[in-house]
């Protein structure tokens, strides 16, 4: 009898953890980083690795005196205010551009995760315009401007019941090992966060999506989050996926919920 009850309890606990809700996941993750970095407030993680290393933070703050993404924001603003051929424009879809806090969201009609980049192309399609290449410059500039317009807004996305499977898929991707080096995202950005990988400090999971797009000195240009996903994949010997593929959008959805309630601070510069 006792064994049966124990089995039942075990089963219920197992089921509970298997279907944990996003908010429980977020709180558990926040607690994980509070314990791992007791001297770092959760909100400070929006600065990524620069929240974890005082010396590199000082260097980064010095770089931010003349932010390398400044011209991208200006160019993005020009694009944002340029009308489409039919006379409509991005303002008809995104008002003044301060909308990033609500992206990505789960579109109940399309049954898919809609990122800001996807919405930009949806906006264009609605006006008969050709879509922008997801790995192109224009979409990075537009999202840089919209990230700037959204600065200090607090991430406020929802995961409706129908969006749970997309959220779970993103979560599974984050915690699964892949590539020849057999690494998961979580190994670098949870277990090894704060440690050095060659000369770089590894950032925490929380706050990872708040500052995109990013001007990376390695790229010598501003680029989207999905470009970083590809790079991370390839660094562990896994094949990168297409920008805005369903898998990457689901991953962005999961990561964004993990940063729910944090202020946006994009665009940013990174080494």
């Amino acid at each position, binding site marked *: 009898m006792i064994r049966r009850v124990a089995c039942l309890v075990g089963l219920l606990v197992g089921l509970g*953890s*298997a279907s*944990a809700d996003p908010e*429980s*996941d977020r*709180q*558990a*993750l926040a*607690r*994980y980083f509070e314990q791992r970095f007791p001297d770092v407030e959760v909100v400070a993680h929006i600065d990524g690795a620069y929240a974890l290393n005082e010396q590199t933070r000082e260097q980064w703050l010095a770089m931010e005196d003349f932010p390398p993404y400044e011209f991208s924001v200006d160019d993005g603003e020009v694009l944002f205010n340029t009308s489409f051929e039919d006379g409509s424009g991005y303002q008809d879809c995104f008002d003044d551009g301060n909308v990033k806090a609500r992206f990505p969201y789960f579109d109940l009609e399309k049954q898919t995760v809609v990122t800001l980049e996807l919405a930009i192309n949806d906006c264009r399609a609605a006006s008969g315009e050709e879509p922008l290449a997801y790995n192109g410059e224009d979409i990075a500039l537009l999202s840089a401007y919209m990230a700037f317009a959204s600065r200090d807004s607090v991430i406020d996305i929802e995961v409706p019941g129908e969006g749970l499977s997309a959220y779970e898929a993103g*979560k*599974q*991707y984050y*915690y*699964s*090992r*892949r*590539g*020849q080096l*057999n690494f*998961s995202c*979580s*190994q670098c950005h*949870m277990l090894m966060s704060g440690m050095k990988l060659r000369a770089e400090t590894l950032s925490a999971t929380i706050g990872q999506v708040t500052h995109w797009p990013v001007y990376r000195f390695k790229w010598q240009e501003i680029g989207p989050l999905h470009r970083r996903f590809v790079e991370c994949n*390839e660094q562990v*010997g*896994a*094949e990168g*996926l297409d920008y805005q593929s369903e*898998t990457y959008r689901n991953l962005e959805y999961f990561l964004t919920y993990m940063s729910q309630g944090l202020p946006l601070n994009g665009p940013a510069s990174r080494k």
Partner: protein
Amino acid sequence: MNRLISILFLLVMCVLAQADQLTIGSVSEQIRQAEYLHEEARIVDHGWVITRKLIEQAKAALADDQLISADELSKRALRTAQASVDQSIRQEEVWRARIPSS
């Protein structure tokens, strides 16, 4: 002395026999199997960069009539492709263990 020559002769024959077994068809089949497994892994987002490179190199070696090299490269591709599929199956079972407890 005659005995030594006989043994050497047999050894040479064995090597030649092995080489004879290598055909364009057999190497092509290995490449095809590696491609199939690589695709299996890719479908579940577990493709490895090294597998793609090895498959490309094996194909190039085969096109260049470098049969022994193509054979070795395709065998390596097959091994890494199988490892990536194994990884995807294993991760399906264990990924939840890495989630911080609520």
